[in-house]
């Protein structure tokens, strides 16, 4: 049976693994709330992971790496905007193209840049986001129960983890507490009404897509410069799609997104630590744990456990009436 320390360790790893999911999930939230479907979260994260690791490895400065990662993700976000807003193309096909573009370009550039078979050199200190020790973390370590929770679970993460968790209330406030957020949500439900009110649908949608790019950029940079030390081929490993699943699971709401990402992070952490889980006589295979986020999402989509209804105008290009 699991002891307390194991539990803390699994939860600690949950927080680490949930962070990229959460950032990507919030990224998708902005985009899809504005009516732009984005299945290219994966590609944007991957591109950002590579450029952040590459620049951090070259300059030795992780902050420059972060900026480069965000910039590369913004370029892909701009491409998605161009295809799906300006040229009113199919948003899903654009997302597929972006995923492949990132999968190919990252390896191509990595091979040309570093000649290490499509990876970046391992990042050494300065090139990585280091864990931050919260105040008194060392002092309270010995306190039973609460001590380990504070010093192991809450303290000792990189700054991007705290940023990701702060992004949840920030997103909730922007979407539901500001005029911009109201308009952004309106443009995903009824763009014609927003247009009638004299607000630019195109401008709002571009803004949403760019915020999505920014957050995907941070998610990718976190993967390559904090969770791991460097870029390897296809390192996102489907996280963009798990984030998408979490977004549907959360029914496009920020606080629920936090819950969904923590749940899926926990599943990953458990699958990582235990191979097959024995519950009495029943053995849950590790493959089932891997598939569980996707199965849960399909169940939610099917509407058997509370229906997930996407923003009404999602996926539809807006054609201004003449």
């Amino acid at each position, binding site marked *: 049976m699991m002891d307390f320390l194991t539990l803390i360790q699994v939860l600690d790893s949950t927080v680490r693994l949930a962070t990229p999911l959460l950032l990507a999930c919030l990224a998708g939230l902005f985009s899809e709330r504005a009516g732009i479907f984005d299945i290219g979260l994966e590609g944007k994260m991957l591109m950002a992971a590579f450029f952040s690791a590459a620049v951090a490895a070259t300059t030795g400065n992780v902050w420059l790496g972060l900026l480069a990662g965000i910039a590369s993700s913004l370029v892909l976000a701009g491409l998605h905007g161009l295809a799906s807003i300006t040229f009113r193309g199919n948003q899903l096909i654009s997302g*597929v193209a972006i995923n492949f573009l990132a999968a190919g370009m990252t390896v191509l550039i990595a091979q040309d840049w570093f000649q290490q078979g499509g990876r970046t050199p391992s990042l050494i200190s300065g090139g990585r986001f280091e864990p931050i020790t919260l105040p008194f973390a060392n002092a309270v370590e010995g306190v039973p129960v609460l001590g380990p929770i504070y010093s192991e679970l809450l303290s000792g993460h990189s700054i991007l983890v705290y940023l990701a968790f702060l992004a949840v209330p920030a997103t909730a406030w922007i979407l539901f507490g500001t005029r911009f957020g109201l308009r952004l949500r309106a443009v995903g439900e009824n763009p014609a009404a927003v247009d009638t009110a004299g607000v630019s649908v195109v401008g709002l949608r571009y803004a949403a897509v760019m915020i999505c790019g920014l957050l995907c950029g941070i998610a990718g940079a976190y993967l390559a410069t904090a969770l791991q030390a460097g870029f390897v081929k296809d390192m996102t490993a489907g996280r963009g799609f798990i984030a998408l699943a979490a977004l549907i699971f959360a029914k496009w709401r920020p606080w629920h997104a936090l819950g969904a990402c923590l749940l899926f992070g926990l599943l990953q952490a458990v699958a990582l630590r235990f191979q097959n889980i024995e519950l009495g006589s029943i053995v849950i295979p590790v493959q089932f744990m891997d598939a569980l986020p996707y199965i849960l999402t*399909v169940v939610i989509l099917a509407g058997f456990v509370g229906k997930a209804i996407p923003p009404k105008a999602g996926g539809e290009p807006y054609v201004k009436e003449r």
Partner: protein
Amino acid sequence: MDKMPKWADVVLIPLISLILAALLSALVILGIGEDPIAAVKLMVSGALGSTYGWGYTLYYATNFLFTGLAVSVAFHARLFNIGGEGQAMLGGLGVALVCLYIPWPHWSLALIFASLGAALFGAAWAAIPAYLQAKRGSHIVITTIMFNFIAAAVLNYVLVNLLRPVGSMDPATARFPEAVHLPSLHELLAPLGIAFSKSAPANVSFVLAIVACFAVWLLIWRTKLGYEIRAYGNSEPGALYAGISPVKITMIAMLISGGLAGMMATNNVMGEAERLVLNSTEGAGFIGIAVALMGRSHPFGVFLAAILFGFLYQGGAELALWTSIPRELIVVIQALVILFTGALDNMVRVPLEKAFLALRREKA
């Protein structure tokens, strides 16, 4: 009235998109310090310069024919089946079960039933997303993506825990019996006096893929069901008014689509590997999207696009072998083709339509 002649829509737009994608790919090759013209020469000689090269090109093309047709059929009903990868994986399971557990007297009989098994498993994997789309309105793109991941997990479980021979470390089934070995193009063409490379994997399932092309053409353009599928794809309210059931069309189109994707396994699992391994599909399900977009969802277009991608895959492998250009170049080209022929379609179409309108006005 049409804004432009049909040939422009069918030939000119894909051609311009393709040229744009090729130009950008050339820039990418230049960007990594290689010579694009030398690269193209190497690809052509490697993929088309020998029967060995052709054997690989046609082998890859066979995979892409099946997955491209799968995406096309769904496209005609305005459904985006992104789950070809998962359906092809399950198709492989169908083929493996048929080949491993039934003693076949002859490969031809085995091929017929393996195709049925593959189609059945592929269709079954498409059935749940199709049902959820038709009955519950769950977005088919998302559910088919999720089913790709679930398929990978299922296959992993089945191979590791159930079908792996005792004592083997490799997550793969046992080798199929000799009786179900499919004749390669070498074996097929030798009696006709045509010399074809012995070691290339192209096999009789290429013929099966061409038959599938023809069957899809018949279905879509020569049958009532095909008409209903196209009508539904063009306008759901229109189809509803004409008494066409959306549930029925969604289900049937997706079952056919999944079945076609599954049948790919007759080529890669039965024809080449002769056992089921992990990740046997190698992304062919996704390439089907590019193939269908480029081929404008028409079987003949899909045929041409599949050959082109077969060429790119074999040529790309040769590039990776002889130069420092990694295989991932093909993934970039594939992305650019999807981008230009799919998502950025209007970028090419709108100026072209304007040009044709201006031309017509001048004539009038």
